[in-house]
C-alpha cells in the first residue's frame, strides 16, 4: 500500500514538476505568473492525441510531434500576446495570460469537442507486480520520462551557450542585454520551452486521466503552487515542490480522505506564503532599493 502510494505520488509529482518548471522559467525570465500554463499543458495532450489516436502515428513520433507543436504554440503566444505588452504594467500581462487560457480552452472545445477523449496507455501491460506490489506501468513511464526530460534540460541549461544566455536573462535582463544577449529571443525561448514541458506533461498524464478541454485548469493551479513551494526564484525548486505536492496529495487522499485531496495544495500554499515565502530552495529575499 505504502509503496503503491509512493509511486503514484511520484508520478503525479513528476507531472506537477514538469508544468511547474515551465512556470518558474517564465517567472524568472520576465517576472510573470503565466496563468495559461495549465492550458498549454492541455493543448500538448490534444496535439498528442491527434497524432496518436487520429492520425495513427507511432507513440514516440506522436509525442515528439506534440512537443514540437507545443513549442510553436508557446512561441506564438509570446509573439502575439506578450511581446506587444513588453512595456505594460504587470497586471496587464497577467490578465493577458488569463485570457489566453480561456481562449485555448474554448478553441480546444471547438476543435476537439467538449467530451473526454480516451488516450491509449503507452504500454499494453497495465500494471506490473514487483515483490507483491502492483504498480501502474504508466506511473513508471511518467517518472522515467520526467527524469530524462529534466536531465536533457539540465544539460542544455547549464552547459550550452544558449542555456547560459537563457540563465543570464533569467537572472538580470538588463545586464544580459548589455552583454549582447538578445533578451527578447531568450524570453521567446523560455516561453516556448515552458510550453513544451507543459505539453509533454499533458501527453504523459493523458492515458491516466484522458483528454478534455478543461483538464489543465486544476493542474495549472497546482503546478503553480508547486513552484511557490519550491521557490519561484529557483528553477529546480519547481522539481522539489512538484514532487512534494504530488506525494502529499496522494498520501492525504490515501490515508485521510479523497474528498479533500484538492484542498491540500491550497492549504500548503497559504502556509508556505506566510512562513516560507521564498520557498524551500529560495533564500530570504533582499529588498533592493
Amino acid at each position, binding site marked *: 500500500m505504502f509503496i503503491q502510494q509512493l509511486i503514484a505520488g511520484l508520478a503525479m509529482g513528476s507531472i506537477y514538476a514538469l508544468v511547474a518548471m515551465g512556470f518558474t522559467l517564465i517567472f524568472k525570465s520576465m517576472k510573470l505568473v503565466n496563468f495559461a500554463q495549465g492550458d498549454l499543458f492541455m493543448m500538448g495532450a490534444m496535439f498528442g492525441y491527434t497524432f496518436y489516436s487520429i492520425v495513427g502515428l507511432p507513440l514516440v513520433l506522436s509525442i515528439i510531434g506534440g512537443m514540437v507543436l507545443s513549442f510553436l504554440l508557446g512561441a506564438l503566444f509570446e509573439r502575439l500576446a506578450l511581446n506587444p505588452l513588453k512595456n505594460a504594467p504587470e497586471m496587464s500581462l497577467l490578465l493577458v495570460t488569463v485570457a489566453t487560457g480561456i481562449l485555448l480552452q*474554448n478553441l480546444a472545445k471547438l476543435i476537439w469537442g467538449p467530451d473526454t477523449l480516451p488516450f491509449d496507455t503507452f504500454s499494453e501491460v497495465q500494471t506490473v507486480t514487483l515483490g507483491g506490489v502492483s504498480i501502474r506501468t504508466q506511473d513508471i513511464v511518467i517518472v522515467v520520462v520526467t527524469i530524462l526530460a529534466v536531465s536533457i534540460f539540465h544539460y542544455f541549461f547549464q552547459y550550452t551557450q544558449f542555456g547560459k544566455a537563457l540563465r543570464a536573462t533569467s537572472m538580470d535582463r538588463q545586464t544580459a542585454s548589455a552583454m549582447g544577449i538578445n533578451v527578447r529571443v531568450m524570453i521567446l525561448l523560455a516561453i516556448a520551452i515552458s510550453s513544451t514541458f507543459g505539453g509533454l506533461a499533458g501527453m504523459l498524464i493523458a492515458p491516466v486521466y484522458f483528454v478534455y478541454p478543461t483538464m489543465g485548469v486544476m493542474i495549472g493551479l497546482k503546478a503553480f503552487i508547486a513552484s511557490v513551494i519550491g521557490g519561484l526564484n529557483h528553477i529546480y525548486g519547481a522539481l522539489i515542490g512538484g514532487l512534494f505536492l504530488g506525494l502529499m496529495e496522494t498520501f492525504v487522499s490515501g490515508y485521510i480522505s479523497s474528498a479533500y485531496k484538492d484542498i491540500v495544495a491550497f492549504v500548503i500554499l497559504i502556509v508556505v506564503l506566510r512562513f516560507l515565502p521564498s520557498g524551500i530552495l529560495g533564500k530570504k529575499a533582499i529588498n533592493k532599493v
Partner: protein
Amino acid sequence: MKLNNKYLMLLALLVVLVALPFIVTNTYYLHLVNLIIVYSIIAIGLNLITGVTGQISLGHAAFWAIGAYTTAYITTTLGLSFWISLPLSILVAGAIGIIVGYFTLHLQGPYLAMATIGIGEITHQVLINWTSFSGGPSGVFGIPTISIFGFEINSEFRFYFFSLLFLVLVYSICKAIVNSRYGRSAIAIRENENAARAVGVNSTKVKILVFGVSTAIAGLAGALYAPWVNYISPENFTFAESLLFLTMIMMGGMGSIPASIVGTTAIVAMSELLREVEQYRLIIYALIIILVIVFFPKGIIGMIPEKFRKGVVYPDFKLQGLGQYSKVIKNRFDEKDKIVLKAEGITKKFGGLTAVNQVNLQVGVGEIRALIGPNGSGKSTFLNCLAGWYEIDGGVFTLENNNITKLPIYKRSKSGIARTFQNILLFNEMTVLENVLVAINEKNKREKQLVQDAYEILEFVGLLDKANEKVSNLPYGHQRSVEIARALALYPKILLLDEPAAGMNDTETAELMDLIYRIRDKGITVIVVEHDMKLVMGIADFITVLNQGQILAEGTPLDISKHEDVIKAYLGKEAVNAVS
C-alpha cells in the same frame, strides 16, 4: 454656477435611474440590469484592492459565495431574518478576507493573486463537501425573499430599487475612501510600495484593511444575491466568476470607482450579445479582453481625454503664519553639540561578504555629514541599514536615546529618519502635492491643514508652482526635489540623501547645495552619500570615509583632503585641489 451644474447632473442621473425600470418592462432585461447592479457592487470592491491598491485578487467569487451562503444558511436553515444575516454576511466575508490578507499581504508581488486562487478553490471544495451547511453540490433551494416590515422584495422591479440603494451606498463609501488619506496611502502603495514605506505608510496594514473592506463588500453582494435568485449552488461561484470580475474592472478602468460600473455594464452586455453565437462566445470574449489590454490598457474610462477627467481638487495655497516650512521641529541650533544619531558596531553581511563591518558613527544635531568611499565600500549599504531596509547582523542604532535597531521601515521614518533613493522612487501617477501629502499623514490634523502644510514644504524646496503637476511629467532635477520635499514632510530629525547630485548639472548642483544648507539651518541633520567631491567638500561639516566596509578616516573636509590613506584609496589629486 459650477455647483449648480453638478447638482443638475445628479438630478438628471436620479431621474434616469428612477425611470429605468418603468421603461425596461421586459422582466428578462430588468433581470440583467439587476445583475449589473449586484456585479457592480463586487467590481467596485475589487477595484478598491486591485485597481486602487494594486493587489490582484483572483478569488473574489469566494467572498461573494461566503456572503451568499451565510445568508442562505441563516435565512433558510435557521429561518432567521435577512436583517440578521446581512451584517453577518458582511462580517464573515470581511473577517476571512483579513485573515487571508494577514497570511499573504506582508509580501510584495503577485502573492495575493496566488493565495486568492487558493481561497477560491478551498471555498468551492468546502461548499461541495460540507453538506450540512451548504447542501452540497446541489446547493440551497427556496431561499426566502427579503422582507421589509412585511413588504416583500419579490419582483425584479422591487429588487431593482432595493439593490440600487446598496450600490449607491457602496459607491459613496468607496469613493470617500479613495479620496481620503487612506486612499492616498493605498494609491501610493500601488505606485511604489517601497517609497510608501519610506514615508511612513504601514503598507502591510493598509493592504490588509483595504482587502478586508473589499471582501466585506463582496460578502454584501452575496447577501443580496441569494434571496434574489432564491437558489444558489457551488457552481455559481467558481474561478471563472473571479476572472469575470477582474475583466470588468480592467474593461472599465483600473483604479476608478465609476469605471467599475461602466466595465460591469460592458461585460454583461457583451456576454448577452454573444449569447447568439454561444459556441464562439468565450473565444470572442477572450479575444476582446486581449485586444482591450493591448490597445486600451486604461480601459473604457481611459479613452476619455484627460482634461475631462478631474482628480481630487485641493484648496489653493494661503500663506499663513511664518511660512517657509515653519512647523519644522523648533530651531535646534542651540543644541548643536548634542548627538542625534549613534551607530555602534554596525555589521551587515551578504552571504560570505561583509559589506559593512563594525562601523561606529556619531552625528550631531544640525550637522551635515558626508559618507564617501569607493564603489562597494558600503556607504549605501550602511544607509539602507540605518533606514531599515536591511536587517543588520550586529550593532545598535540609537536615535536620541531611543534604540531604533529593530523598528520596521515605516516606523523608522515616523520616528525621524527620512530618506531619498539612489534611483528616484516617486508615486508617478500622483501630483507633486499628493506625493508630499502621502508623507505628511498626521493623524490628528484636518485635511485642509495638511494641504496647507504640504504647500509650505513645496514652497521651501521651490516647487510651489508645480504642485498640481503629475510627477512623471517633471524633468529629472525637479523629481529629485519632489523626493526631498516628500522626505521633509515627515518633519525628520535626520535626512538621508543617497547620491542626490547624480546626473545633475552645475547649476542644479548649486541649487541643491543651497537647499541642503537651508534644511540644515532648520536644525535637521543631513547625512549624504555622494561621489561629487565638489559638493561633498563644499557642504560637509564632517566626512566619514568608508573602505571595504570599514571606516578608513573621519574628519573635516580639510583633514580628509590631506589624509594620505584616503588619497590613496579614493580621492586622487583632483579633489585635493578642489579644496585648496
